[in-house]
């Protein structure tokens, strides 16, 4: 059984503490109901940029954990970012990939290679400190405490079903520049 993306996000929300979060695509609408107005910034309007956005945050603020909620189509669009993240080696970055096998937001077209693309191997090959797949909610819950503590960069491929909402059905939420401004203000103050 594939993990429901909303369940994965709820489990992460319960465990994350004050980690900064970077949702994108179908994790974005779900995340803003699960964790409204908090230490998060969505990658909206530049597909594939979530992991790089998270990398910048992680490098600027090594005192904070940074969690990226990437899409599989998005990661394929900027696949080289795996090497960039691995090369920069932020100890505080966890890169969650919500692997649903499709471009859900644009109409659920199959991604190139479909479900067969092995992102764990790619992340390992790029040089992430650890990379693994999780196909079951209980396992995610069990492993979260260590994922939030161990030295990064860590890559986690979550095998998920389709989200209930997409940015097309639920709207884009707060404009990107307001999210940027808000998180910057929160980070300066803390």
């Amino acid at each position: 059984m594939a993990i429901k993306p909303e369940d994965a996000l709820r489990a992460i929300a319960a465990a994350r503490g004050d980690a900064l979060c970077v949702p994108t695509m179908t994790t974005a609408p779900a995340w803003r109901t699960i964790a409204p107005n908090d230490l998060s910034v969505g990658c909206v309007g530049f597909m594939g940029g979530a992991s790089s956005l998270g990398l910048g945050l992680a490098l600027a603020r090594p005192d904070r954990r940074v969690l990226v909620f990437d899409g599989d189509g998005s990661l394929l669009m900027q696949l080289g970012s795996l090497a960039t993240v691995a090369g920069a080696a932020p100890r505080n970055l966890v890169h969650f990939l919500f692997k649903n096998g499709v471009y859900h937001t644009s109409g659920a077209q199959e991604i190139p290679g479909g479900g067969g693309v092995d992102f764990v191997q790619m992340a390992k090959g790029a040089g992430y400190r650890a990379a693994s797949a999780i196909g079951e909610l209980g396992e995610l819950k069990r492993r979260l405490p260590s994922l939030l503590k161990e030295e990064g960069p860590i890559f986690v491929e979550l095998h998920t079903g389709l989200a209930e909402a997409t940015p097309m059905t639920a709207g884009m939420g707060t404009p990107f520049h307001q999210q940027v401004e808000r998180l910057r203000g929160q980070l300066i103050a803390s």
Partner: protein
Amino acid sequence: MPESIPAPLIIDTLKDTFREARAALAAEGVRPRHDHLGWILSVPDTHQKTVLAALDKERALRVLTCSTEDEANAVAAGLWMGGEPFVLMIQHAGLYASVNTLRGVAMDGRVPIFSMIGLLSREKDKDPRESRHSMVRYCEPLLDVFGVPHARLEGPDDVHLIPEYYRLAQKRRGPAAVLVGLETA
């Protein structure tokens, strides 16, 4: 006639620019958390390779090489939120390659991204807009289309444009660029 700018002059100017940026950030309430002055986000530009070579020996400036200019822009936004100063060092082809991210991050996100863009293959005796090379010719017009303020470094006397356009990016909360006219020395 344009002249090449020596790498050490560019590096000293970048250091001064970052010192000033750090002071402005401190005035804003950003606490110092790093020993270095700032970040150079680079996808190697052939035109500025002497600068990149000299940066290898610099401890005060941290170079992060990205696989794409898209990444460099998104990393920049993360650094901006985290209170760190940075400069993008790319070439014109990189600008063309990352137009969607320039729009999505620097413009829509109102992130002050200052870029140094190398005009590789620019002919010494020609205005870039009259270049034989499309890569050289379209760079300034493209920036104009997006309303990105830009200036050209045509020799050592022009390095003052680096802090000026860096400040301009901060002031307008968006992108600003200087174009490196000739290969750095």
